[in-house]
């Protein structure tokens, strides 16, 4: 005789799904990315209509907190929220109570009192989005934390490649420049390898983080390595992050001569990308930036629809997966 025993635990209602955040690309599955790119594509079509505003997130509140300067990321998050009819509040590090010495925790707690649905945060310190997630019930979207992650940038880059090249899987992407200080590079290495692309990092050895191969990419210090790639992704030479006297490269002039992306170093048909803002004449030759093979302006447009997709995904059904972060209960 088969005995059926019902455990008391089985009768409990299932636990609510964990709050989802977008903090790191590492937390996404391939399915998550495909779903997000698909959503972005449909938003892209909707933006071709005359009436660009969708009612989807009406009544929702989205807070944009930018503790670090930003033009394209902050403006595209704000516009993305508005296109979806959400209410937005934008806070900048300077000119706010942060100037008066308020801690990140207290700023988050203050804003949490308005019950926002999403907090978009950019911060100069690694780990700020995780800390924010511990002190609010809102979904957190990382808009860049220190040198760690910039997941929406990587998603918009995938979207751009998908739309312009037609595929990501099997593609060879060379990421060129200051990898050491680049959150864009870290998110892109994870995103591209997740989707089956091959990634080669190219740049001066002093700007190549020791141990980065463990992320599943190849490393070269020879700029000629970019010729083999389908897409050349040029990183910004982050002058403001260079410690004084650190001597990562002897001079910007020498950097440009050795690792600058010029038309002579590219093959016809190679696509060129850059997360912006560009230092024309340093990491990228102006002729390359303005060439028809450059996808740089398309990336900016992709930023809007991808960020719409991320907000939509977090706030609607969006199958669980974005991130099951944070164990800490909200006090």
């Amino acid at each position, binding site marked *: 005789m088969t005995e059926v025993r019902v455990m008391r635990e089985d009768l409990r209602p299932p636990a609510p799904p964990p709050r989802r955040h977008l903090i790191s690309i590492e937390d996404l599955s391939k399915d998550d990315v495909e779903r997000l790119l698909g959503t972005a594509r449909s938003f892209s079509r909707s933006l071709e209509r005359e009436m660009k505003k969708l009612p989807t997130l009406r009544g929702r509140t989205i807070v944009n907190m930018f503790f670090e300067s930003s033009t394209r990321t902050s403006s595209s998050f704000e516009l993305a929220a508005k296109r979806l009819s959400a209410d937005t509040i934008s806070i900048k590090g300077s000119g706010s109570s942060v100037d008066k010495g308020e*801690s*990140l925790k207290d700023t988050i707690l203050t804003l949490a009192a308005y019950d926002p649905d999403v907090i978009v945060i950019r911060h100069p310190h690694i780990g700020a989005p995780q*800390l924010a997630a511990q002190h609010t019930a809102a979904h957190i979207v990382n808009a860049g934390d*220190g*040198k760690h992650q910039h997941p929406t940038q990587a998603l918009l880059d995938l979207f751009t490649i998908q739309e312009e090249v037609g595929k990501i899987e099997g593609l060879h992407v060379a990421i060129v420049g200051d990898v050491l200080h680049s959150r864009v590079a*870290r998110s892109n290495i994870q995103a591209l390898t997740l989707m089956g692309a091959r990634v080669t990092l190219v740049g001066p050895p002093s700007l190549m983080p020791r*141990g980065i191969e463990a992320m599943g990419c190849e490393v070269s210090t020879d700029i000629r390595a970019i010729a083999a790639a389908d897409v050349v992704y040029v990183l910004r030479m982050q002058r403001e992050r260079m410690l004084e006297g650190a001597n990562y490269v002897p001079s910007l002039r020498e950097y440009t001569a050795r690792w600058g992306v010029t038309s002579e170093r590219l093959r016809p048909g190679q696509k060129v990308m850059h997360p912006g803002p560009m230092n024309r004449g340093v990491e990228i030759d102006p002729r390359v930036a303005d060439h028809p093979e450059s996808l740089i302006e398309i990336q900016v447009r992709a930023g809007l629809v991808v960020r719409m997709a991320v907000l939509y995904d977090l706030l609607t059904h969006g199958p669980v997966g974005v991130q099951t972060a944070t164990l800490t209960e909200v006090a």
Partner: protein
Amino acid sequence: MLYSKSAKKESIVVKGARVLDPAAGVDDTVDVRVDDGVIAEVGTVLHPNGHRVVEAGGLLLAPAFVDPHVHLRTPGREDEETIESGTKAAAAGGFCAIFAMPNTEPVVDSAAVLGALVETARAEAEIPVGFLAAITKGQEGGELTEMAELADAGAAAFSDDGRPVEAPGLMRRALQYSAVSGRRLALHCEEPTLSRGGHIHEGAVSAELGFGGYPSVAESVMVERDLALAAYEGRPLHILHVSARESVEAIEAARSAGVEVTAEVTPHHLSLTDEAIRSLDSNLKMNPPLRSAEDRTALVDALKRGTISAVATDHAPHAQHEKEVPFEAAPFGVTGLETAFASLYTNLVAPGLLPLDTLIERMSAGAARVYGLTPPKIEVGAPANLVLLDTAASWLVTEQSFRSRSTNSWLLGKKLQGQVRLTVADGRVVHEG
């Protein structure tokens, strides 16, 4: 060299424990009787003699622990720790003596500051505490402190812990002068031009997370330099919180070349690797940083062999609001006094990586010898410095677990095996749990 509040010595009998004292060569189930703070008899079925009896069947009685490296934050940051709270935390961790580092506000670099600390310790230290004084004034690496006077005023040793003595010429002078003070130099080995901007160990984890890397070689080149200078001057020294495999190799080589060098390692470096930092928990940020699995293995082996002869907690309390910030903005340092034995029992002894008697030896006798303390021993005539341990008991580490004023423990939320039931320090019962 050690200071604590004066209190009446006690008389007790601990009955039925497994008595394990590797230094005295004892491992037997016997009773221990303490008369007025001194071990009077070790034997089977001792008569209580009217003393208080501690029934200890199934428990482990060992010589109490010594911590050569603690930050008591006094003077200056009494919100984080005081001599009273720090020594109570130490008592709860099974320690009978601790040594406090001089990187306070102000720095312990004059007999006046040291004298005030000694007075405070005499008024409120629950267990004996020794104080290190700075090697250089203000720990600024410019001028030597008056080491002979400081030694007379009670300095147990000298250290600029928290920072290295950068200039090799000054390091050499400090070594020469240590012959006059008669006290050992304890060195924080870090080459600042290699560690600058570093938050965690340089390797695959720092590469992926984007943290500035603090490479192993930043420690080991300074260890090698200081050992070379010590060899040249023929002076002893102590290497604080060793974290890198290369440093272990350098210490081993110097010792076989005749340099009188001791070294310590922390419970967190013995238990964790940089992989743990993926959680971005700011209570995993310390200097030196958690290193690779290879380094951790080298540290455990070195502790086992005796190349590293002491466990030190580097107990570094920080105010909650200072640690409740993004990892990158958080200060370096974690607490450790109250979790030292349990963390090492759980992470090294229970999985079979380190024998229990070796752990006891490195936490008591080995640690005591660093600054020349008589090792605690379970033998007749010795002052009673005892710890009674329950190695079967497990407990959950929470913010409520601590006597320390700070809760920046790398073990919050973790379950540990091994609990301190009783601590006797210098003949007094200072903790019961």
